[in-house]
């Protein structure tokens, strides 16, 4: 009895804002690590130019899911995937779909700030360079635009040739966001981008996300429910590799329709 009700809830909230164009359409997505069934028959849309948050307890598959969106998950040995994810109408698992192309459109910011052991300038210029841009003037412009876009330009403009490892953790993370912007992506995936940062840096990154959503579609995995409530438009609650509930953020946090969602957001488990 309870199970059927839950199923209905999921169907009902398949897409939180139907009027929005989807950037990703996930259809019957299953993923296994060896024998471990990590993602179970996921089916939902991710809307364009919105912040979509993914919350859930550790090991629920939220990181796995976000890494599936740019196929980084395939770097793990022994991964099997079935079903499809359509990015702008094209199935990303199509053998003809080049993963390098997908990743230039779907950028990623990682959990731990991971700048290259190069200068600040070279960190940002890396993306354009690997895509064949050699013109120094263009590169200079890209670097400035990206650093401004990530709200870090004023802090680093006088030290562009210094090593990025000299920046603070929060600055490094914004540098990584700038590096991601430099390839002019369409979607930005963020895998717990503030979990290694202090509260002030976290706030800066959150403000930045609000700015970025005007131009980019953002998917963010977060451990922090308050963060999801603060910055996202829609929220998906993952549990044991399934989507339990997916709806507008304000609705999910004020009137969760599933008991398990309610238990999780009120801190009864997880």
């Amino acid at each position, binding site marked *: 009895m309870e199970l059927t009700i839950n199923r209905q809830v999921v169907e009902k909230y398949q897409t939180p804002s139907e009027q929005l164009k989807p950037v990703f359409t996930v259809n019957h997505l299953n993923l296994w690590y060896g024998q471990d069934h990590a993602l179970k028959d996921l089916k939902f849309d991710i809307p364009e130019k919105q912040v979509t948050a993914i919350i859930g307890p550790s090991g629920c598959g939220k990181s796995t899911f976000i890494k599936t969106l740019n196929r980084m998950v395939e770097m793990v040995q022994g991964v099997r995937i079935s079903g499809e994810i359509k990015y702008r109408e094209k199935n990303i698992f199509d053998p003809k779909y080049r993963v390098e192309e997908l990743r230039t459109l779907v950028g990623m910011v990682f959990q731990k700030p991971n700048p*290259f052991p190069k200068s600040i300038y070279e960190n940002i210029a890396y993306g354009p360079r690997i895509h064949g841009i050699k013109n120094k003037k263009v590169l200079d412009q890209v670097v400035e635009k990206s650093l401004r876009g990530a709200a870090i330009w004023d802090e680093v403009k006088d030290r562009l040739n210094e090593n990025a490892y000299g920046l603070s953790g929060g600055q490094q993370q914004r540098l990584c966001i700038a590096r991601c912007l430099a390839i002019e992506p369409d979607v930005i995936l963020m895998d717990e981008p503030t979990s290694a940062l202090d509260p002030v840096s976290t706030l800066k990154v959150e403000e930045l996300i609000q700015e970025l959503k005007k131009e980019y579609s953002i998917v963010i995995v977060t451990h922090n429910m308050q963060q999801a409530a603060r910055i996202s438009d829609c929220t998906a609650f993952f549990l044991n590799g399934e989507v339990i509930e997916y709806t507008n953020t304000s609705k999910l946090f004020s009137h969760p329709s599933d008991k398990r969602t309610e238990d999780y957001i009120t801190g009864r488990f997880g």
Partner: protein
Amino acid sequence: MSLINKEIVHKRLIKRMTANRFAKFGFILATSFSLMVLGVLIYRILVEGLHYLSFEFITNFASRIPERAGIWAALLGTLWIMAVTAPVSFILGVGTAIYLEEYAKKNAFTKFIQINIANLAGVPSIVFGLLGLTIFVRLAGLGSSVLAGGLTMSLLILPVIVVASQEAIRTVPREIREASFGMGATKWQTIRRIVFPAALPGILTGTILALSRAVGETAPLLVLGALAYVAFVPENLFSQFTVLPIQLYNWTSRPQEEFHMLAASGIIILMVILLIMNSIAVFIRNKFHKRS
């Protein structure tokens, strides 16, 4: 009721303190013994070797008259051998390491190769000399030339370079590779622009230390037929040659005391070369470590 008897604890305390002091003493003893041996060695070599050490000693050819004897041919022979060995072993060694770490699937076969490379690093150098004699001198018909000698030395130090480079590549954090792949870089771009530069200090350190080993090797080149008495410098890759350690061996095996002193002078030169190479390795390591 306490489970720990305080009285026994107190008695044991004195014992433990004694053992503690004794351990420290033992380690100091071990270190001073090695330092003493080194000190005696350096002292003896300096006493014997300084007599003949002069600018002419470096620029003269070997001679039957000790006053006129020098190491010019051997010194240049060593440099020629290095000029062949360094690029060949670097390119092959680093290439192998990159393939094994980045491309090869981790299965039983690569594990087998891995173990064998590690084993090769421990094979006596004379065996490599025999290998070089068979393949380069005889089969390839290179004769006892600089090229054959350099290639043999490359084989000798290749396993060391492969293992050192693999270690260096493995220390490149996974996170920065992911960052590169996440921006749509291909594997080759990631290796060339991220992994290789980050691993380079470690690779260079390993390579230079391996080359220092090659500088001091005698056995494989003797087997190849490197000459003991040479009064000319190698002109090209196919010239015959001698190297410093062979020249030293030659001098020490003579009965006259003067030649033993010449050998000591040669050892000073050889040690200076090794010292310079090791300093370069240390310098590279420190320079790059500070930046990251």
